[in-house]
């Protein structure tokens, strides 16, 4: 692995900075200790410092440093435990220890090696100081008298030690010149001070925005120039201050090789860790926030992703699995990827599991693409671990990972090829302090939408607005490139006065929050702005719709919408168990979600109903796109050839449709789709309003009275089979296609 040296260098650098600081503290503590020889607190502090240096030097294989601090630590342990008491001799020896450690560190900083210094003389002195009480076995009370003779050998050896140390002392001035280059070119700054600077810079950015906006209309050339200059300098300042909070992702990754090594040893895996883009920088608070999610993903990849060597061999893969961590910048965000070449995730298996656990309905899963099925792992309560191991499957699942990532305004998704591997993708904003946002207007009020959750803006022109928004029951939807996008009216959510007149034009902001996608209808989009998100007081945060507030360019306060909160509030849980869902369905408190039926018309004036939940899309097919292949009807649809069934033919009626396009109901599952062509899409009704009867016929499963009209219940399964006999071939045996109405 390249970059190991750099990594080591960095660790040593940190060790040096830390140790220099510790030694300064040690000097002070030792001196204070002479004044207050009995202070346990001081002794404990000194002990800790020496212990830390010993530990790290052992880790970095600096053996001299380790051995001398080890002896010192023993002496300090005795002092701390009261077996010895502080004497000037001991204090002197300890201070010499500090000096020696300093010399060793200086040498390490210069040459990355401990050099020629001999630590043995001082070690002997320290050991001699250790001996007496043990030899005399004297009661502690007598320690002073017992100790005094013991000082003799120490004192005798003492002159030797400085002589031995002399080379170091001589070298000292030379070292001094370049010494602490690390210590001096970097300054440790209190994080709070940094945060304060960042906050102030944020204020400055806002003030700048206001001045720039005003000077633009002031028509004062000098003011314009000055404000331009202010703008530039503020921008640079902002960038600089932000960089003080930036840390390379390496910081986060540096602990992972160890995690990977230990885990793969424990689980009997052979794993090679590869890291790319470790110099990608990220705000330190965000870095801290993604630490746990990332570690979890890495553990998960080893535990559930990469197979044991023999399994890999059987699968024709190299025995050593590869776990890749990748960091990069992508459109103003940091992209963190955790990629393994293990078993991968199998969408249908995940889907089956989610159904088994009652997390989603079987019907819903049917309509999901494999990609969507994979995202099921993020649902709370889902864990793929077959057995609870102490590595993962401890109840902290992917839902926690997602929650943590979304809390900092990030997002996560997963992609996988069964047998080939899995790629977890985290998108993290660069910084939280200043975020790009879009300001929108709704009923004369302005709101800010963080750009990170904004996918696109769709404009609804006046003439289109009334037709572009369609209704499924009482839920407005919009067809975005063929898929139905649930719509949320911002004015309705906020309880703002609803407009009665037809708005000129509106905008749908396509947002993603809480793992779900929806469109937010606003009156218009105003601007993009860099905003500083300011926290709201508790009472206002509780409303759950606002992430904070900000001050806009003109000095006015604007609320920042909480997209995830909006999604949670307005979109019902996929399984429909959301209480809000039943509340809002016109006060009907039902035990379960009400199923909806799609009512269509076919030839002969007959009406058919089918469960809406298994319908993937409703489409209008141009008659010209309908063709025949052999004895089957097909339709050209999005570059595919879709098997097609004319329901009128299927049920022996003559179709009366003859216009340019015909409506079709599309079903998709497991990558196969079929279309059922009808004469007309009539309505969508709640199942509650249906009166059933058991009058049946070929291709039907019953009939019912819907809105006072006799409506036949289509046997969807046989209709689909008539269009595509192989549609259900891949269906898992355990799962029946849920098409029965009752």
């Amino acid at each position, binding site marked *: 692995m390249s970059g190991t040296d750099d990594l080591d260098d960095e660790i040593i650098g940190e060790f040096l900075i830390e140790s220099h600081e510790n030694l300064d503290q040690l000097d002070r503590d030792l001196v204070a200790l002479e004044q207050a020889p009995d202070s346990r607190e001081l002794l404990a502090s000194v002990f800790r410092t020496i212990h830390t240096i010993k530990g790290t030097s052992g880790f970095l294989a600096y053996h001299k440093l380790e051995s001398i601090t080890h002896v010192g630590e023993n002496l300090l342990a005795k002092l701390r435990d009261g077996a010895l008491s502080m004497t000037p001799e001991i204090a002197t020896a300890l201070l010499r220890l500090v000096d020696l450690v300093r010399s060793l560190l200086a040498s390490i900083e210069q040459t990355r090696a401990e050099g020629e210094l001999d630590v043995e003389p001082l070690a002997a002195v320290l050991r001699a100081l250790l001996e007496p009480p043990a030899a005399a076995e004297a009661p502690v009370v007598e320690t002073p008298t017992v100790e005094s003779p013991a000082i003799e050998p120490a004192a005798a050896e003492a002159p030797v030690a400085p002589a031995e140390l002399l080379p170091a002392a001589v070298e000292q001035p030379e070292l001094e010149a370049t010494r602490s280059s690390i210590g001096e070119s970097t300054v440790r700054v209190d994080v709070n001070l940094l945060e304060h600077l960042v906050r102030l810079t944020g204020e400055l950015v806002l003030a700048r925005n206001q001045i720039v906006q005003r000077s633009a209309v002031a028509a004062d050339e000098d003011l314009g120039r000055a404000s331009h200059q202010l703008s530039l300098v503020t921008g640079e300042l902002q960038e600089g201050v932000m960089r003080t909070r930036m840390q390379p992702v390496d910081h986060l990754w540096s602990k992972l090789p160890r995690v990977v090594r230990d885990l793969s040893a424990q689980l009997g895996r052979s794993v090679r860790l590869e890291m790319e883009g470790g110099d990608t920088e990220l705000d330190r608070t965000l870095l801290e926030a993604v630490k746990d999610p990332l570690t979890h993903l890495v553990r998960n990849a080893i535990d559930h992703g990469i197979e044991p060597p023999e399994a890999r061999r059987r699968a024709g893969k190299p025995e050593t699995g590869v776990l890749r961590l990748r960091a990069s910048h992508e459109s103003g965000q940091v992209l963190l990827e955790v990629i393994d070449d293990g078993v991968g995730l199998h969408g249908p298996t995940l889907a089956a599991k989610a159904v088994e656990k009652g997390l989603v309905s079987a019907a819903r899963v049917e309509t999901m693409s494999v990609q969507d099925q994979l995202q099921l792992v993020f649902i709370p309560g889902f864990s793929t671990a077959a057995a609870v191991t102490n590595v993962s499957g401890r109840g902290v699942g992917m839902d926690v990972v997602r929650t943590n990532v979304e809390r900092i305004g990030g997002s996560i998704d997963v992609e996988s090829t069964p047998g080939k591997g899995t790629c977890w993708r985290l998108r993290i904003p660069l910084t939280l302090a200043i975020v790009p946002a879009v300001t929108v207007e709704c009923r004369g009020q302005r709101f800010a939408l963080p750009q990170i959750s904004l996918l696109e803006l769709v404009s609804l022109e006046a003439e289109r607005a009334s037709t572009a928004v369609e209704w499924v029951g009482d839920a407005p939807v919009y067809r975005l490139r063929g898929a139905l996008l649930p719509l949320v009216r911002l004015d309705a959510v*906020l309880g703002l006065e609803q407009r009665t007149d037809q708005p000129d034009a509106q905008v749908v902001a396509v947002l993603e929050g809480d793992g779900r996608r929806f469109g937010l209808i606003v009156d218009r989009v105003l601007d993009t702005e860099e905003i500083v998100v300011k926290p709201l007081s508790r009472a206002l945060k509780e409303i759950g719709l606002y992430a904070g*507030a900000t001050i806009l360019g003109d000095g006015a*306060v604007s*609320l920042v919408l909480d997209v995830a909160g909006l999604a949670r509030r307005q979109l019902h849980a996929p399984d429909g168990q959301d209480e809000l869902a039943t509340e*809002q369905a016109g006060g009907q408190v039902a035990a379960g979600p009400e199923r909806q039926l799609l009512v269509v018309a076919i030839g002969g004036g007959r009406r058919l109903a089918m469960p809406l939940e298994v319908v993937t899309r409703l489409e209008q097919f141009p008659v010209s796109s309908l063709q025949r292949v052999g004895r089957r009807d097909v339709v050209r649809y999005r570059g595919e050839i879709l098997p097609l069934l004319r329901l009128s033919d299927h049920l022996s009626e003559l179709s009366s449709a003859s216009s340019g396009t015909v409506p079709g109901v599309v079903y998709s599952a497991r990558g196969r789709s079929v279309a059922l062509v009808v004469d007309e899409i009539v309505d969508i009704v709640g199942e509650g309003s249906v009166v059933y009867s058991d009058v049946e016929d070929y291709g039907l499963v019953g009939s019912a009275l819907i809105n006072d009209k006799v409506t036949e219940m289509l046997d969807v399964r046989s209709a689909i089979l008539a269009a595509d006999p192989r549609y259900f071939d891949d269906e898992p045996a355990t799962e029946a296609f849920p098409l029965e109405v009752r």
Partner: protein
Amino acid sequence: MGLLLATFDLGTFRCAVVAADVQEVLMAQPRTPVPGAADCVDGLINLRGQVVPTLDLRARMGLPAESGVAGMSVVVRWRDEVWSLLVDRIGDVIEVDESDFEPPPLTLAGPLRQLIVGAYKLPDRLLLMLDVAQLLAVGGEPALR
């Protein structure tokens, strides 16, 4: 040494908060409404770059809204939060004697009971001592859809 109180008028009431809690007093500022918040939350103001919510004390205390009164803002710092309290008129800062304090009368009911800790008997009138913690305990409207 008595306690220093900042006083202000609300309708016929003269009310007070501890002067040490008051950060400053302002003319009423332009406010950005917060849809979904309780009715008495009367928007956000920009106080030198800080976003400060405004509490309409009349609404909070169940008094009818008074038109034509421009109002003043008493900016209080409470725990970590800063709020602006909208009042009719600002009074003096006065020093009161603990011995003049009485708890709310037992006959007092309604929203006011929750919001005052008691009253100081001033020579000419009663001074209602507001309970800032209670005043600021305004949740969002649960009925919001």
